[in-house]
């Protein structure tokens, strides 16, 4: 998936001279996950460069650049390190179009590796998507595979508004179903690992059904899509697995269509539970599908603790926990 992400930036930098890429270690080195490798050599160091370790500076400068007319696609090294930039994201990037009545706009993409599963401990594992979905003016995207990652990132760069692009780092190199004790399969062995060349966009705001099913709808995104698929197979529950892809704007139609059919819903995410994005999904599902629901909408999420190092697999909502929720939901 990392190659797909790099490819998206490459395609867009070639097409549009206003696209610039910067962040910590993204220049000569190409980023700690190598997402920007080769871009400086190809597009020069004024279009792809290292930034000081100041997330607020990176986002703040990007807001200014976007207001000028550039399209910055910046990297926050880990989503866990976006907090110093939170004011610039929330009070500035997200509000600029509105408060200036469109005189100034802020087309920019903030890429950040997110999520756990790599023994990164408290500060290399967080999934802060709900901190963005609560902020009007932002769009929030979480890809689950290389084909989407490239198409969504291209759509994000082309979008006229600020887009938060969370990259589940656990699936950079291959799909991950939560069975950490099994060998890792690379993307090259997965159909969604075959990334088309050149320019294409996956529109923001459209979910994808990854598995059709009749019994229960699973709402997931990022790494959890693969966990949910594994849980469905392993439990034998005929689950319909929806990959949300974009959290805001949300494809509510896809959700209601599915839950209207299945009458049951399980929501899965890695982030802590209280006020996680699952809460919003749960609220929306019961608001729109109340009379179809045959069981309570369930949430399987990270626990309300910091992401621990040693207890990584106790924390991570793996296929066993998701499977249990599927079975419980079916029993009700």
């Amino acid at each position, binding site marked *: 998936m990392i190659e797909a992400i790099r490819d998206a930036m490459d395609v867009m930098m070639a097409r549009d001279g206003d696209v610039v890429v910067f962040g910590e270690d993204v220049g000569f080195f190409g980023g700690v996950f190598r997402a920007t490798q080769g871009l400086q050599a190809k597009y020069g160091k004024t279009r792809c460069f290292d930034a000081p370790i100041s997330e607020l500076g990176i986002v703040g400068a990007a807001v200014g650049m976007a207001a000028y007319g550039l399209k910055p696609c910046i990297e926050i090294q880990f989503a866990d390190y976006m907090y110093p930039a939170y004011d610039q994201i929330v009070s500035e990037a997200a509000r600029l179009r509105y408060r200036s*009545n469109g005189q100034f706009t802020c087309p920019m993409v903030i890429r950040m590796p997110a999520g756990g599963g790599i023994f990164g401990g408290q500060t290399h594992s967080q999934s802060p998507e709900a901190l963005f979905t609560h902020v009007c003016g932002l769009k929030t995207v979480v890809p689950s595979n290389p084909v989407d990652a490239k198409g969504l990132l291209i759509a994000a760069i082309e979008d006229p508004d600020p887009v938060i692009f969370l990259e589940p780092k656990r699936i950079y190199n291959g799909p991950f179903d939560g069975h950490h004790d099994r060998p890792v399969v690379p993307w090259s062995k997965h159909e969604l690992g075959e990334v088309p060349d050149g320019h294409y966009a996956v529109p923001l705001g459209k979910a994808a059904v990854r598995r059709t099913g009749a019994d229960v709808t699973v709402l997931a995104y990022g790494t959890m899509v693969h966990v949910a698929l594994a849980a469905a197979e392993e439990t034998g529950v005929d689950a319909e697995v929806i990959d949300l892809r974009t959290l805001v704007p949300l494809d509510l139609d896809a959700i209601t269509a599915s839950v209207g059919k299945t009458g049951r819903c399980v929501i899965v995410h890695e982030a802590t539970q209280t006020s996680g994005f699952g809460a919003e999904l749960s609220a929306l599902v019961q608001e729109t599908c109340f009379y179809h629901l045959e069981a309570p909408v369930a949430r399987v999420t990270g626990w309300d603790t910091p992401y621990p190092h040693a207890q990584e697999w106790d924390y991570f909502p793996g296929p066993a926990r998701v499977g249990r929720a599927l079975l419980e939901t079916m029993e009700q």
Partner: protein
Amino acid sequence: MSDYAPLVLTVPEPAVRPGGTPDFSNVKIPRAGTVARPEIDAEPESIRDLAFSIIRVLNRDAEAVGPWAGLLTDEELRAGLRDMMTLRAFDARMLIAQRQGKTSFYMQHMGEEAISCAFRKALEPGDMNFPTYRQAGLLIAGGYSLVDMMCQIFSNEKDPLKGRQLPVLYSARDHGFFSLSGNLTTQFIQAVGWAMASAIKNDTKIAAAWTGDGATAEGDFHAALVFASTYKAPVVLNVVNNQWAISTFQGIAKGGSGTFAARGLGFGIASLRVDGNDYLAVHAVAKWAAERARRNLGPTLVEYVTYRVGAHSTSDDPTAYRPKTESDAWPLGDPVIRLKNHLIARGAWSEERHKQAEAEVMDTVIAAQKEAESYGTLHAGGHPSMRDMFEGVYAEMPPHLRRQRQKAGV
């Protein structure tokens, strides 16, 4: 265990509090004309002393003296005087309008008019200011419509910002005036980013960043200095030191450093201090700094030494925390009177013309206000619509917001 005396926390205090006698004897003011004017490409290291002095042009006799003098024609100076007078009249009218309930809030410039008015004249079309709420002079001196400003203040049906923003948080792209944020200092680093963009695109436009003394404490200020210093961004970094941050005196933000200009020295940024109540000095320093930026010589930090004569905002009452007469004691005088006297000393102005100008300016402002009020005020007349509230959050309204708008019945 220890033979050390107990530690004690230092908490800086202003020299005087209400009831005391104002005292600015600690403010060291060099004579006008005494500070050297470095070459435009001077190395920042070679001019460190400029961060600890005050560049001044107008002396006590209202003459323009020294190496920073001589840049402006009579015509330009008269225009500058008129800009400042307009801003002052504008403030006066809007303060009254606020008290009359025509708007919720206002912030005035009394005493600081020279800074934004003179700075504006150092810029070229296409340059971009990232101002605070106390630089409306950038708009007035740039010829922006007074009516539009007032419509914003009144949040009326012609408010260019559709009622979405607090009064005085203007935005005027075509006038080089970036959308004001209610959050302090966020725009200091944005200005640097804008300037970097100009350099990335091999443009010739420069940016100007603005902050007050108090707000220099924010992290965004540091980020701006780091980025400006690293990428040699074509930006002028302006710090308006008006001695106060709401009720907090400048010593809390400044701490043990001698001046705010000194902050730039640790970054190798050319840093100057200037008499903010001296139109000619402000203009000359702004020109110098802008020229450096435009010649790709990098950023300049400028501290304007001035005094906030009025209340912080219409929500504030300064008599609670500083002597009522402190502004009278301020040693740098009043910027309008100083420029007026200089013009008179030059033989290019007179008391009569000044009186007449005052009346004209006030007429202009009142006429603008009348027009603006005809489009409504906060609680009366025309106003932005509820639809305007839902528009513009995104370029295209997403489904959830459409649903909400429907629910709201608009």
